[in-house]
């Protein structure tokens, strides 16, 4: 049985059968961060899990995707137009953030239903940039 002792703000010592570990913890319920021995842990509640991709399947319609920016970014180029068919992996929109280009690629073969961003626009991660179906 492990014993946990708080030894500082956000710092815990965990004693487990004679072995000790120092664990750093921060965050709020639903999104907790921890660090122990060079490894970063993050625990998020279901529904808030962010994946490395940027496509979100619309509920009940697995063949449609809303493509969003993974982070606040500037739209460098919009490479598709409404009604266009795209193949999986095609670049739809080119973003730039922190001096790096971030291509937004099609997660599957699809048709562009709507484009909701313009070149030069600063976009936020909660905005849908391109609707695919």
């Amino acid at each position, binding site marked *: 049985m492990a014993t946990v002792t708080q030894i500082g703000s956000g710092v815990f010592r965990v004693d487990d059968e004679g072995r000790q570990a120092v664990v750093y913890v921060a965050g*709020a*319920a639903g999104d907790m961060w921890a*660090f122990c021995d060079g490894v*970063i842990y993050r625990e998020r509640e279901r529904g808030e899990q962010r994946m490395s991709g940027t496509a979100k399947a619309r509920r009940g319609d697995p063949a449609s995707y809303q493509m969003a920016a993974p982070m606040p970014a500037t739209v460098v180029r919009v490479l598709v137009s409404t009604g266009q068919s795209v193949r999986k992996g095609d670049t739809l929109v080119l973003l730039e953030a922190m001096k790096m280009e971030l291509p937004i690629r099609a997660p599957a073969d699809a048709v562009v239903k709507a484009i909701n961003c313009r070149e030069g626009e600063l976009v936020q991660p909660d905005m849908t940039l391109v609707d695919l179906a």
Partner: protein
Amino acid sequence: MITRLLIANRGEIALRIIRACSELGVESVAVYSDPDARAPHVNAADRSVHIGPPPAVDSYLSTTRLLDAVRASGADAVHPGYGFLSENGAFAEACEKAGIVFVGPPSAVITQMGSKIAARRLMQAAGVPIVPGETPQDQSDAGVLAALDRVGFPALVKASAGGGGKGMRRVDEQSQALEAIQAARREADSAFGDGSLYVERLIERPRHVEVQVFADNHDHVVHLFERECSVQRRHQKVIEESPSLVVTPRLRSRITEAAVQAARACGYRNAGTIEFLVDVSAGRGAERFYFLEMNTRLQVEHPVTEQITGLDLVRAQILVASGEPLPWQSPWITQRGHAIEARVYAEDPSSGFLPQAGRLLLYREPRMPGIRIDSGVEEGSDVPVHYDPLLAKVIATAATRDEATTRLICALRAFPILGVQTNIPFLLRILEHPRFRSGEIDTGFLDNEGASIAGTAPPQIPAAVRAAIDAAATAHGPRPTSHEPRATDHKPRQDPWEVLASWRP
């Protein structure tokens, strides 16, 4: 002597320069954009001037706003740091014209060495070996394509105006060339405001070895030995060290001599770095090196040189810019022990190294023997989306490479940063990698081994960590919901949970 120095930069390098000012009794002036109003570099300076909105083009990259800040603060000198305007000849020239001391080389040297074609011509004339390549006269897609054919494949397409790997693309065959040219041009244009491209032959499996040089106005040019920076990810340095394992005493004397020759040939002044590609494929004793480029500024990795020489490069920069002779001379500049630097970035290696923005909920720098940390953030700092996501540089110094590597590993294992993803686990996997430990690395090391080192799956939470998370949740009682402001934070800023809650797949 400079009396009031404006630092046209932010983050760790601004702090580094401010500390040198304090030691020299020079007044420091920080500049800041809106999101940096409470940044550590602003708090540490003697004075500070607001220079504009968040985008770098309207603040840290704006010559007009920076010159206004110089006038408003009464500064008599400007230190550009690295990045931003540090290698912008027009900015240095504007300072010169306004009678302000620019801590760096003369503007004409920046412009000359910043142009790859002019730099190569000069090096060739000075007898320094160069890699086949050219800046096409015809910068159209067709013109650059033709130039690629002339230098041969594999080749590199890169920004003619810049360094640091921005706007650089590898092209293995003609069919990939067009896309690479267009992408490189866009990145070059947005990073440097100049879309001109340079193409060159790619030397396979080279080592990146650079030589620190320093020159004053009294005809002294010295070198401060080499740094090896072969651990790079897409041409961005990740780990830097000195001495280099592949630099034998004989190669050291050849390569440092070439570097000093290069600095003399361009009329260099202040701190600079000559980067070389070293081809070791012909075996020990038959190494060949080629001039890659010159960085006409202080480098991110300058602490590595400071650690092995025991010298203060930033202090010397300010003295030399004030017209004083170099504080050291070559016979007694020595290389002692081994130093390794790791760059800690707010980026997520498991999702394509996506830069991370957000608040540092917990940030505790380790304190241990032989560890130096140059950082620009503190617990509670916000990492803005607009700038380079470098948080800290951790530099380990010890008697040998092996000891220094172990020391760096121990420091990174004891460096908790929570609230944004960092590359610390990635850095640890590099430092523990058998190829790194044995020194069998070249500039392609990370790009080839990258997938296994980057890590993809989030780590399983072990029992001890689970116990601590549960204890933390209990200790703090019920938490506010994600859309309510959090009351415990000491800085009345935008609530981080609101920002995080809007992140989504």
